[in-house]
């Protein structure tokens, strides 16, 4: 488990990471999302002990990375943004070196071979790292993080510079690793985070803008609770029918999507699930629902909304404050 408590980092006067706190439970793949320069790599560097936090605390399985760095580092496999490879070594020599560096105890040859098979670098095992392609270098970097079988893996943009097939391979590998390891994965590629991660932390300008599952973040952001539905038949009648359902606040009809089929955007009060009743009512009129989806935000929407505008927590607080103010006026 990783616990981050009120972590701050200044570079001179510049605040790179501003009081962030989050927890990663065991066996979770956490996506660390944010635009360039948001503080992702700085945070990861602090978690791995490469940088020291200006204030705050990072606990790796209960061990403070600053107080007992060696014990904490033993539990982490880290792939930085630029794989830390000694270009003059062969893959074999390099992995041997990392094995010694991490003071591993499992049988050397078997362990290294297993990892090479896992990240698919057996065919370049004897080659000098300098001559490898970017994709292979990245995979050797991943291999070094895996050596010693650390329970926690911290991967900083692991798929940068890979071709689409390699990206798919690495993602599948990370998913597989997530079964046995706790993984923190940073990226600014949204589909990657969505495909792989159980939980997401969005960081913007050094602050945490959102911290939850993609689904929950989406729900909390699309606070207006909208449903988009396609129903055949007369437009006006359908609007009337939908308006008759309790909990519906607003209905708007879109243009004709298919011959005789309109799309309606229904806004609910947020407390009532109107889907079952909608279905029954439409069926009673011998009409058909041809499509029904909630207008939840995609990760792209969330990302843009969060990083371009205010963060969720502040937005929520402001809403509450507004309500209070309104109440006061009344």
């Amino acid at each position, binding site marked *: 488990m990783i616990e981050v408590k009120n972590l701050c980092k200044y570079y001179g006067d510049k605040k790179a990471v501003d009081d962030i706190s989050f927890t990663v439970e065991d066996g979770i793949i956490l996506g660390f999302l944010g635009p360039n320069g948001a503080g992702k790599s700085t945070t990861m*560097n602090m978690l791995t002990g490469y940088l*020291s936090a200006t204030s705050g605390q990072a606990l790796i399985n209960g061990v403070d990375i600053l107080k007992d760095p*060696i014990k904490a*580092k033993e539990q982490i496999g880290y792939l*930085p943004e*630029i794989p*830390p490879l000694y270009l*003059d070594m062969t893959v074999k020599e390099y992995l041997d070196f990392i094995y010694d560096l991490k003071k591993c105890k499992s049988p050397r040859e078997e362990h290294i071979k297993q990892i090479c098979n896992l990240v698919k670098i057996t065919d370049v095992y004897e080659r000098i790292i300098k001559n490898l392609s970017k994709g292979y270098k990245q995979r050797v970097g991943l291999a070094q993080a895996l050596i010693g079988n650390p329970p926690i893996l911290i991967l900083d943009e692991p798929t940068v510079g890979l071709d689409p097939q390699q990206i798919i391979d690495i993602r599948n590998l990370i998913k597989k690793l997530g079964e046995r390891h706790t993984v923190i994965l940073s990226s600014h590629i949204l589909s990657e985070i969505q495909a792989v991660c159980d939980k997401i932390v969005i960081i913007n300008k050094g602050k945490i803008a959102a911290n939850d599952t993609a689904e929950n973040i989406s729900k909390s952001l699309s606070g207006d609770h909208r449903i988009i539905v396609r129903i055949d038949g007369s437009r006006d009648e359908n609007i009337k029918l939908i308006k008759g359902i309790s909990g519906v606040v607003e209905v708007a009809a879109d243009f004709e999507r298919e011959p005789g089929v309109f799309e309606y955007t229904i806004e609910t009060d947020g407390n009532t699930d109107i889907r079952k009743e909608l279905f029954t009512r439409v069926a009673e009129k011998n009409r058909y629902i041809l499509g029904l989806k909630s207008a939840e935000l995609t990760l792209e929407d969330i990302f843009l909304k969060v990083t371009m505008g205010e963060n969720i927590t502040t937005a929520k607080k402001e809403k509450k404050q507004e309500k209070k103010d309104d109440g006061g006026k009344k």
Partner: protein
Amino acid sequence: MKAIFRRELVAYYTSPIVYVYLAVFTLFSGIFFQAVCLYNKTTNMGGIYDNMFSVLLFIIPILTMRLLSEDKKYKTDQCLLTAPVSLTGIVLGKFFAATVVFLSGMAVFFIYAFMLSIYSAVEWQLVVCYTVGMAVLGMAFISVGLFISSLTESQIVSAIGSFACMIVIYMIDMIASFIPNKTIASMVSSLSFLTKFYEFTYGIINISAILFFVSFAAVMNFLTVKVLEKRRWG
């Protein structure tokens, strides 16, 4: 520490740097061997070691320039600093690797001594005394070079910075002679590398001189550790 020591040693012997170093070391010591021993028909090798002092000022920075600066440049320090190794372990691993390369260069003195022994009796105790002196001197120089290389990511800056420091060390006696205050002057001259090293070339194994060089190296290595530590707080 062992892993880093081994990796650095392999890196030395797979790069041209060490061969340039060994070639230059052998070339100059060879010239001095010719001038001091063969030309004067003596088995006293003290003069060779004496003259090698100034050569070391220039060639040790070649040996140490890449030690920590290269790691910083290619970001391989991320691998070392996030591994379960102490900063002292990292610094000492690199320090001892450079020391071993330095000592391997000195093996050539024993070849010279062996050649001389064919023609006349060589005082082996003296050769050992000279060698011990140069070994501790070299370690002190290496620790300076290692410290400078921790400050920069450019090998050139590291090498030139180390040269400059070595020259200052060389000039300590001269600097002391310019200081009017006698107490300060004697304090400065007590740091002189030259006078302490020359004792060895006269055949005196002075424990305090050995302690001076070894503790100087220890202090420089400590400062290097502090530089690495400070970088984390940067």
